[in-house]
């Protein structure tokens, strides 16, 4: 089942990349990043079936970092929304010349 898991993981990661590239809503882009993290977690778990439980330890670390990242990222999105009244990335172009 290792090959199938890795293929599914690759497909989910690619779907997450497509989500990041095609959407303009900051929250949906953020959720696509979470999907990519999940895809990597699936590879870790698939390898841990073969090479011991260390992969599962890394999955727990990834989940912790993802939780921290979600909290900070969503706080940033709320702060941007207060200023701009939108989360559409087309309108958040302060750094564009």
């Amino acid at each position, binding site marked *: *089942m290792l090959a*199938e*898991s890795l*293929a*599914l993981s*690759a*497909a*989910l*990661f*690619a*779907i*997450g*990349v*497509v*989500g990041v*590239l*095609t*959407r*303009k*809503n900051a*929250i*949906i882009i953020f*959720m*696509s990043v*979470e*999907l990519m993290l*999940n895809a990597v*977690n*699936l590879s870790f*778990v*698939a390898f*841990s*079936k073969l*090479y*011991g*439980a*260390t992969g*599962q*330890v890394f*999955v*727990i*670390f990834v*989940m*912790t*970092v*993802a*939780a*921290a*990242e*979600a*909290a*900070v990222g*969503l*706080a*940033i*999105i*709320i702060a941007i929304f*207060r200023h701009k009244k*939108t*989360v559409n990335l087309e309108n958040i172009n302060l750094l564009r010349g």
Partner: protein
Amino acid sequence: MGNELPSLFYSFHFYLFGLVALASAIVFVTRKSPVAAAMWLVVTMFALAALYVLLDAQFVGVMQVLVYAGAIMVVFLFVIMLLNLGHPSELADMRGKWARFAAAFLGLALLAEILALSRTTLDLRLRVSPVPPSATATGGIIGSVAGPLFREYLLAFELTSVLLIAAIVGAVVLARKKG
């Protein structure tokens, strides 16, 4: 399981949850409404939790349901509804036609690349001897995860508490109203 072929019951559920995860992920990136997208992502995460259980990682499966589907996605839904993002002017958020073509091409290229890598170099470069199932089974489901977590990776485990404190303080400071 060992080296023998997995049973039909096992294979059926593996492919079932794999297809559910794949289909709900595709539906997730194509939904216009952020709330619908979030709900489909929850479906993906539940299917992944089932796959973790099938891959003998029951503890990680439970954590997936509790932390990802239960906590992180609830925070996402909370923010979507707090910012009231369901109204029509926010819904048209797809990029233009060419950007979507480029994204689909990039995604397919990435998928092909990862698949090709997993086919070839994996067997050559990751030639670590597989751990026999008896060695991983010591201490039960949670003990096999807790062992390395509190021995080899104790420093990293303690550092995540610093990370979480920093994230909490950062989130409070960033989301606070000025003045």
